[in-house]
């Protein structure tokens, strides 16, 4: 396994004081923390920094690490702890056997616990992974859902990579799952699938899988809460004279009336044609938009000219 130079990872000197170590950690943690940095490699970098800090902030662990460092700094790729190495450190909130930490960390700091727990069992020794039940990690997966599919419950097949411990090695496996998406899901909602997350080890329970629902942008409709908004284009004469229009909705078409003298920006409500709510449905709002023809033929031009001469309408009245 690779030797980890925790001082280099935090960018501090070997004799750095705790205060400097804390400062360096905070700076790097803020930069790479997955909640602050969305870059793909940020999480890995953060884990490395957190591991280095976990060791260097603790006087006892740091002293042990310094010992190991003298022994193994030159070994780089082929590092193994010295024969008979036994850590005396007690691990606090971060479990030393956690898969969040590197094999290097686990091999250096988990030896003692493994021996303590297995001393009654002469056949069990030298574990680098936990030998007590550990719950698997929770996982989260973004699931794109079409607006149409939220009206009824639907089945969806999802694929994701999952970490699993096989022969004391952490391996990633592709998992395929057919899931039922309940009706009425909204953007950002999380659905929990119990026991479908990371596998537990040593008889521990599996973690959960959270499906993070993301509504796929629709070519016609925008979502606002449980209501939908769409733009309804009208020819100038339709807006003036009024008309009856067939409007598409998520589940079929409906007829609606546009009143005479309608304006751009006016909203018409189509009741119950929005998204599924706890009870009933939201509404669909059609926002009127008056659109001119892209080209005007001679006959139309004559009519427009006539209108221009006879109409007293001044759209810029407020300017004067």
């Amino acid at each position, binding site marked *: 396994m690779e030797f980890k130079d925790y001082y280099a990872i935090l960018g501090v000197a070997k004799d750095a004081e705790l205060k400097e170590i*804390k400062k360096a950690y*905070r700076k790097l*943690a*803020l930069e790479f*923390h997955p*909640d602050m940095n969305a870059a793909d490699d940020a999480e890995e970098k*953060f884990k490395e920094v*957190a591991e280095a800090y976990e060791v260097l902030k603790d006087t006892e662990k740091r002293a042990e690490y310094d010992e190991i460092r003298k022994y193994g700094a030159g070994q780089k790729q082929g590092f193994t702890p010295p024969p008979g190495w036994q850590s005396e450190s007690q691990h606090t*909130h*971060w*479990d030393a056997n*956690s898969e969040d930490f590197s094999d290097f960390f686990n091999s250096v700091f988990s030896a003692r616990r493994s021996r303590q727990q297995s001393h009654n069992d002469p056949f069990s020794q030298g574990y680098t992974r936990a030998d007590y039940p*550990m*719950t698997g*990690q*929770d996982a*989260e997966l973004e699931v794109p859902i079409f607006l149409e599919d939220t009206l009824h419950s639907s089945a969806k097949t999802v694929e994701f990579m999952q970490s699993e411990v096989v022969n004391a090695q952490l391996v990633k496996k592709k998992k395929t799952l057919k899931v039922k998406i*309940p009706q009425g899901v909204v*953007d*950002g*909602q*999380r*659905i*929990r*699938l*119990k026991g479908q997350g990371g596998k537990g080890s040593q008889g521990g*329970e599996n*973690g*959960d899988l*959270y499906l993070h629902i993301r509504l796929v*942008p629709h070519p016609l409709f*925008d*979502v*606002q809460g449980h209501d939908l*908004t769409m*733009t309804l284009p009208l020819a100038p004469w339709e807006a003036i004279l009024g008309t009856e229009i067939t409007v598409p909705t998520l589940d079929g078409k409906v007829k609606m009336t546009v009143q005479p003298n309608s304006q751009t920006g006016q909203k018409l409500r189509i009741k119950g044609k929005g998204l599924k709510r706890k009870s009933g449905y939201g509404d669909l709002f059609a*926002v009127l*938009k008056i*659109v001119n023809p*892209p080209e005007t033929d001679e006959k139309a031009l004559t009519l427009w000219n006539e209108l221009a001469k006879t109409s007293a309408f001044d759209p810029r009245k407020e300017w004067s």
Partner: protein
Amino acid sequence: MMNDSIRKVSIEELCKSKDINQTLVMEVVEFGIARPVEGNTIQDWKFDTSTVHWLKKAIRLNRQLEIDWVGVAMVIELLKQREALEYENHTLQRQLARFLES
């Protein structure tokens, strides 16, 4: 209707994770970062799955960035606001684009 286990998580289930314990969950609730949707006593608390996302984030920020709970409450509130504003901005941009396109 969705059944309970897919939209709610009990405190007992939450605390199975190695990074979470009752004391931490109590801190998060005390500082108003997350609120249980069910249960009068701690043992009966249940959280909405979306709340669990923020609750876990709060615990991570407290431990990993060593931010105190008042700071965490503020960060979470701002992150929620940012998420809501980004969503609103995205929706309005799309609506505007539809309206402006010929």
